[in-house]
């Protein structure tokens, strides 16, 4: 039986040391022989504190003494203590071991059983896993951030920062639902600049872009917060005026816009004068969906263009 137990102790996958109350080693199993390169014959009878001075330090001596004289068991984690019994050759870095210290009392003699488990692989995996989790979290943050940017880009004009056609359609559809439910009216305006092509031809596209940004800024100042100004591209803009009581309200704003164009647009020490042709459709008379309302405002705008530009016209006034 005794031999069977000895064989079993040599087979287990952990280091087993037993020391007596003078800290002399009485058992040194095969796992430790493989791990340290020291044979059992060499180690048995040797003082543990001499061969591994870490155990002579205050903390570990207290643990051994507590086991011997107070019967206390103690678990020490590799996370906090790293290594107790270093490997034979310094080939492995970051060796982590868990240690269990337990008292054994036998025939009036006191012993300490020390079990050493190699946790190095485990810690490496946990460390890898922690890094992966961190990376995934970081990527997720980046994806979220770029999503916000993409959504903004998908719905806005990059030159002026104004809503684009998609966002404008979306706003019209929302206002349409509200207006239907509450029996309200709203207006859609199609605005096209007069003579913008000539500016691009004379001063170049860069100048044209600056002027478009300027126009966007000035138009916005004329509008209420609830209104929407969008750029379709080129020199075309769309405007949405919710909560319109009568044509007079639209005439007021259209006149304000027309008058604003009488002031010059300055850029790079130059000044230019522009005007705009505006076509207006009103819900529900001129259409009951975004597409029709925009198309009819566009038709009304073309009528202004054909009749000398610089002005506005209601779709309902067309012959």
């Amino acid at each position: 039986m005794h031999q069977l137990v000895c064989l079993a102790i040599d087979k287990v996958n952990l280091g087993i040391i037993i020391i007596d109350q003078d800290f002399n080693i009485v058992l040194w199993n095969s796992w430790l022989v493989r791990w340290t390169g020291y044979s059992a014959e060499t180690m048995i009878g040797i003082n543990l504190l001499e061969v591994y001075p870490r155990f002579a330090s205050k903390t570990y001596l207290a643990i051994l003494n507590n086991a011997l004289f107070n019967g206390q068991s103690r678990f020490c984690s590799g996370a906090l203590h790293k290594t107790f019994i270093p490997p034979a050759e310094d080939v492995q870095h970051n060796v982590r071991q868990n240690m269990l210290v337990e008292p054994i009392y036998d025939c009036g003699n006191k012993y300490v059983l020390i079990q050493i488990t190699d946790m190095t692989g485990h810690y490496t995996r946990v460390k890898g896993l922690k890094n992966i989790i961190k990376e995934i979290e970081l990527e997720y943050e980046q994806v979220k951030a770029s999503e916000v940017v993409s959504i903004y880009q998908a719905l806005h004009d990059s030159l002026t920062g104004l809503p684009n056609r998609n966002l404008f359609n979306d706003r019209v559809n929302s206002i349409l639902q509200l207006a239907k439910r509450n029996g309200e009216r709203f207006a859609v305006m199609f605005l096209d600049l007069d003579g913008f092509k000539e500016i691009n031809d004379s001063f170049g596209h860069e100048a044209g872009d600056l002027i478009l940004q300027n126009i966007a800024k000035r138009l916005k100042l004329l509008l209420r917060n609830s209104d929407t100004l969008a750029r379709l591209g080129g020199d075309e803009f769309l405007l949405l005026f919710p909560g319109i009581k009568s044509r007079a309200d639209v005439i007021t704003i259209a006149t304000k816009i027309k008058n604003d164009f009488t002031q010059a647009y300055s850029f790079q020490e130059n000044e230019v004068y522009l005007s705009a042709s505006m076509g207006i459709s009103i819900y529900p008379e001129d259409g009951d969906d975004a597409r029709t309302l925009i198309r009819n405002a566009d038709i009304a705008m073309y009528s202004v263009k054909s009749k000398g530009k610089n002005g506005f016209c209601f779709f309902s006034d067309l012959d």
Partner: protein
Amino acid sequence: MLDSMQKDALTEIINVYIGKAASLLSEMVNQRIILSVPEIELIAVTQEGQPSKHLPPIFSPGHIISSSIGFGQKLQGKAFLIFPAEQAKLLVNVCLGEDVTITENEGLLEFFDTDFDVLKEISNVILNAIIGELSNFMDTRVQYSLPDIELIAISESDSKIILKDSTYILLLHTTFLLSETQVNGFVLIALSMNSVTWLLEKIDALLEA
């Protein structure tokens, strides 16, 4: 259960014990740790497994980490160190010098085996110190088991499980102060009726002396 004199005496004794545990822990993790037990309660558990008074919020539903050590011979019982899961994680992170901001992902904290090992050791140090000093105070020797650590999801009815086999619970409200982080937990010492009677006799003797 405890009169105010007994309570004061026990609180003072326990704070000395826990102070020793704190210095052991400080050395271990290489930073100053202050442990205090501002309040102690002795709770009796009735035969139906119900505590005689309301238990603190630690037993409210949620995840807790419980580490326990059994001890025996003349002084008999089981000692627990219990933390709400997020407080346990905070403690581990501070001890390992890692990020102390805890983010809870869809209600689940990331616990690794290595985190449990750290908690197991912390509880081992604290509970050994308390039981050890308590047995010194009682002038007796005890045998200790190694700590068992568990992550427990507590529901309303589960609080009974912990209390099942015990007659008396000594509840120590425990605060850990690590540099600038405060971690709150509980030490719970379940004692047999004989052990409690004996403890109270010892305290009374101390008070009379």
